[in-house]
């Protein structure tokens, strides 16, 4: 445990990376997932099929493989993130960070899509019928009536997906981002005698972060619940 307390600054910056990874990929995955679900429930069959194929392929691929792809294979195809170079305090957002955010977003968006689709399915039939009866187009039905309710109904599954994303950011530590997992690995290597204490310290921070997220989700769910 002393190893963690002596290096508390480094540990703090490591968790800053974790939280930043989570925030960036969280927002991007929600946007991309919404786009995907719009394609999946929309009237154009080609787009339905395309989105369904994307979801099936990406969601059955291990996240580590996707990160490996962006790390080793994508540069060979000329896809790099070298343009990203932000330094802020001890936080460094480099091409590794960019690749991690892209992989995490692509992966998580498929689960966001499925969670939202279950939400769309839970909106009562009459809502969409009534919306159509007053003459709204598909875009209007979706954006004014169905999606706002679908978002509310899918808060619990979306929260599970985002909690999983928070835990999944650790995979970025294997591919060059100095976040919590990478820092824990270095500390454990340097202070082998204290491995249990180091693990417990990092694990407890994660438990706290997860609890905070699920607390926010349950607040949001109660506040947004459809009467």
């Amino acid at each position: 445990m002393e190893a963690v307390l002596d290096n508390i600054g480094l540990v703090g910056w490591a968790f800053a990376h974790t939280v930043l990874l989570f925030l960036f990929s969280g927002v991007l995955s929600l946007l991309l997932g919404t786009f995907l679900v719009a394609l999946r429930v929309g009237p154009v069959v080609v787009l339905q099929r395309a989105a369904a194929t994307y979801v099936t392929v990406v969601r059955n691929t291990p996240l580590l493989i996707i990160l490996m792809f962006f790390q080793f294979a994508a540069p060979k195809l000329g896809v790099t993130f070298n343009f990203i170079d932000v330094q802020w305090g001890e936080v460094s957002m480099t091409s590794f960070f960019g690749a991690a955010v892209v992989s995490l977003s692509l992966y998580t968006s498929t689960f966001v899509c499925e969670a939202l689709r279950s939400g769309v399915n839970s909106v009562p039939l009459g809502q969409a019928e009534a919306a159509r009866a007053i003459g709204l187009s598909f875009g209007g039905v979706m954006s004014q009536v169905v999606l706002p309710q679908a978002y509310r109904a899918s808060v619990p599954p979306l929260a599970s997906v985002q909690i999983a994303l928070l835990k999944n950011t650790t995979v970025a530590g294997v591919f060059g981002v100095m976040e919590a997992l990478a820092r824990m690995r270095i500390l454990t290597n340097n202070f082998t005698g204290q491995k249990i204490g180091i693990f417990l310290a990092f694990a407890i921070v994660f438990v706290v972060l997860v609890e905070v997220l699920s607390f926010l989700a349950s607040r949001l769910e109660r506040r947004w619940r459809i009467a």
Partner: protein
Amino acid sequence: MSAGVLFDAPGPATAARHRIYTIVSLIAVAGMVGYVIWRLYDTEQLTYEKWEPFLTPKYVRALLVEGLLKTLQMAATAVVLAVAVGGLLGVGKLSDHGWVRWPCWAFVEFFRAVPVLLLMIFSWFLIGIEWSGASYWGVVTALALYNGAVLAEVFRAGVLAVPKGQSEAAYAVGMRKSQVMNIVLLPQAVKIMLPAILSQCVVVLKDTALGYAILAPGLTEVGKRIFREFGNHVPTMIVIAFLYIIVNLILTWIATWVQKKFVGEKKVLEVSMTAGLDTGRAV
């Protein structure tokens, strides 16, 4: 609500508009696929030399035996252990005794919230990184603990989903608590839980890839060896992802079949943070 309710049956004008949308999106999708293929061709990823290892018996055997088989073995060991851990903890959480219930609850909450990769690295160090089998058992231990904690919730929900009359009748004929659980509740609960357990297998299988971080054997390790030797990163990653996807699709298909066969039209058992068949599944 099915997607068919979101819009009217199209009239002639809308049908014409949809035809235009279909053509435009067909062109867009074809364009994207074409661009990817052109990109692969342009960067010389489609040449025979890059794909040769996957047509050479020696490497195919390595990929299937040292790679896929080892990965499946790792996943299967972890699933068996996870079901055991999950069964114990799930029943423990239903215990009438606080001193059994609370530790089980704490254990489940802790291991569900800790990233599985963190757990993996810790078990690897704990087992001892000098021993060659440590990485294999590190992966198995981490996956068994994490998924055991997740399955504990499934077990608990499954037992609670058995109609109340069953346990009441069992108590009425004079069974003891353990008999009610073992003879009456668990056998019926297993049937309800089976699809959830099977789709959790997909999670376990995907997470075996994390073993890459602790030098564990399996598909990722064989893939690394192949692309180190041939410099064919793109084809290797495509082949490995393909193998994972195929096995996962087979597992999902089995889970759906079991669902239809044993659970029927009844609602799928839904537990937060686990694998549901078609909702926020298998993260």
